[in-house]
């Protein structure tokens, strides 16, 4: 635009779009996603979030630090298998993914709308499904890049973990699914709430509820499923002992006295306590995404891990064992009340036998049973799937134009 131009006229308008892209008549109001549309929206979103030069430098430094850390740990760590480093890395991936991706997604619809860049896209041939999945995918891919960044560390940790490749792949897939679901939840909040601040907090609150809320609910519902059990322990009746027996009991010298002849008694006012039937509420814990990931991880036997070529049970195996304990619930003996029998213990002790309390519990056998109990990821996977599909459905419904209802207090453009 120069002032020399005395008779201002717009430059020639470009020719109409060439025939090769002639648009076939379209009817109706399609909303289903198309691969092409989803890909385009993903591309747009990723390009918009492309880091600046400073961003790349920061990212490079981060990668360098991670690599250095990995090498350092590899050099100083002792020989032998351990699955803890791998599990830490996986928790890191999960944590980073669940913080980053939902935050990005939770501003991506109401933010775009108030910036005025959503409506022009809705005016094109892109469908509501294209926009929803494209935005979901782009936020999730960023979490995936985090995973790639940490990959070198993970490779090292994996080599020492005693896990198998397919097991790691399954757990990674579960982690990425959990991140995808929380991203979709963030996106859904973004399509419901008018302001970005609100949707970001709601997204994190939802994630927080899934992580902590399920555990708290499980703990607080325990009284509801508890059964009252009476302590029926037996012990030596010290008052009723003869002098001879008392001397033997005090000095622990059983050469004169047969321990089987000692008088035994139970409490006249026995202690009562609750035993929770956790097998009835364990499903609440199984809905927890982290527990679900734990349930997808390999089973490490308490007894045979060494022969199996595994590392000692790590974080995930311990989690699986506790969850299995809750799923199995109290044993018959637990429900019969704690049956500590001092008299029986005395006899066993004198005869040089082992005495496993009254609860009949062979602690090691119990640990073994728990550690190798069947995995139960299905409830968790179901919850994730329902939340994922439900969130996507909300987003698509909210992105469909013509709008019937707008987000409270917002304009279309």
């Amino acid at each position, binding site marked *: *635009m120069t002032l020399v131009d005395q008779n201002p006229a717009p430059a020639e308008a*470009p020719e109409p779009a060439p025939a090769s892209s002639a648009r076939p008549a379209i009817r109706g109001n399609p909303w289903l996603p198309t691969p092409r549309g989803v890909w*385009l929206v993903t591309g747009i979103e990723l390009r918009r979030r492309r880091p600046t030069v400073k961003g790349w430098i920061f990212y490079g430094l981060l990668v360098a630090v991670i690599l250095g850390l990995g090498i350092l740990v590899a050099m100083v760590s002792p020989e032998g298998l351990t699955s803890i480093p791998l599990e830490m890395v996986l928790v890191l991936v999960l944590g980073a993914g669940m913080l980053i991706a939902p935050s990005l997604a939770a501003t991506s619809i109401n933010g775009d709308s108030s910036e005025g860049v959503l409506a022009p*896209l809705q*005016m094109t*041939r892109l469908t509501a499904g294209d926009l929803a999945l494209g935005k979901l995918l782009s936020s999730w891919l960023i979490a995936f890049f985090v995973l790639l960044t940490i990959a070198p560390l993970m490779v090292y940790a994996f080599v020492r973990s005693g896990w198998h490749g397919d097991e790691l792949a399954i757990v990674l897939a579960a982690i990425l699914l959990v991140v995808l679901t929380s991203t979709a939840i963030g996106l859904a909040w973004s399509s419901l709430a008018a302001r970005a601040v609100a949707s970001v907090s709601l997204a994190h609150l939802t994630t927080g509820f899934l992580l902590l809320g399920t555990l708290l609910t499980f703990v607080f519902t325990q009284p509801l499923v508890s059964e009252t059990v009476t302590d029926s322990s037996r012990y030596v009746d010290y008052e009723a002992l003869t002098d001879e027996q008392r001397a033997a009991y005090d000095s622990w010298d059983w050469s004169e006295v047969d321990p089987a002849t000692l008088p035994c008694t139970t409490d006249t006012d026995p202690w009562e306590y609750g035993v929770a039937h956790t097998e009835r509420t364990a499903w609440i814990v199984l809905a927890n995404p982290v527990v679900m990931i734990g349930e997808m991880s390999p089973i490490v036997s308490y007894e045979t891990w060494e022969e199996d070529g595994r590392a000692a049970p790590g974080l995930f195996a311990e989690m699986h064992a506790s969850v299995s304990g809750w799923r199995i619930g109290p044993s018959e003996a637990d429900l019969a009340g704690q049956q500590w029998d001092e008299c029986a213990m005395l006899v066993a002790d004198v005869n040089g036998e082992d005495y496993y309390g009254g609860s009949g519990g062979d602690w090691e056998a119990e640990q073994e049973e728990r550690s190798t109990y069947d995995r139960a990821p299905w409830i968790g996977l179901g919850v994730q799937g329902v939340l994922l599909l439900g969130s996507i459905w909300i987003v698509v419904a909210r992105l469909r134009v*013509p709008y019937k209802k707008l987000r409270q207090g917002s304009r279309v*453009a």
Partner: protein
Amino acid sequence: MTATDTIVATSAISAHGVARAFGSVQAVADATLEVRPGTVTALIGPNGCGKTTLMLMLAGLLRPDAGEIRVAGADPRHDSAAVRAAIGWMPDQLGSWDNLTCLQTLTLMGRGYRLHKHEARERGVGLLGMVHLSEFADRPTRVLSRGQKQRLSLARALMNDPQVLLLDEPANGLDPRSRIELRTLVRELAADGKAVLVSSHVLAELDEMVDDAIFMSKGRTLGDEAAAKVADAKRRYRVATLDDAALREVLAEGGVPFDDEPSGVVVRVGSEEEAFQALAWLMSRGVKVHRFGPAGSALEQTYMSMEEERR
């Protein structure tokens, strides 16, 4: 049904009795309008009278509560994809992807319209040239000034070579030269057979651009009465002389009706031919005319004569 069919055949945009409320606010109460292909129609009204809301409904972004809309023969309620494909919409809100360059913005938009990559790019380059943003093609849109953003938004609206154009305050923030260019461009697009609906608050500018005007007030379109006022306003010519008293005398003698306004004498002429004759007659009667021409913007006069308050 036959009535609607004929409207479909002759109008690029037609709306009948359209209404839309936001909660308790009746943004558009009863809007009726027709825009034929190849014409430019202005949408005029005070702030908050519902122009933007009406355009959103025409564009198929907002569902009307009542009324019938046809754009390029399709109903935005049920065939909104077809409507969107036929429309170029320039919103009143300036929004652009900050991090992307102008050319990328247009190319990606074009791909949203299912153009091939190279076609979208070519068209983007062409349109950037048209709105004089070529030198900004590879710069991020966040550096653009307000007027430049407005021009980018116009280019974006033209990416899919639409048959119907909805321009919501397109001249906002444009410099004088760009405004004149916009006017020329809009006329050219209409000459290509496109239907253009343009809203603006700068009425003097619309005068030379539009074939037709629709006035809106409190969510209602004012139909025939406003059209009659515009027609009347177009006939008004102001005569400025060195001696107004003499002019009044001559006019009274000749039995010519005239309005005596504080700013001078206004007469009504039917056509340019008649205007020429009137001037020749005044000259022949020795009236010292130093200025003779339309009495300002017809739209502005009509607008000011509407006793409508803002909201």
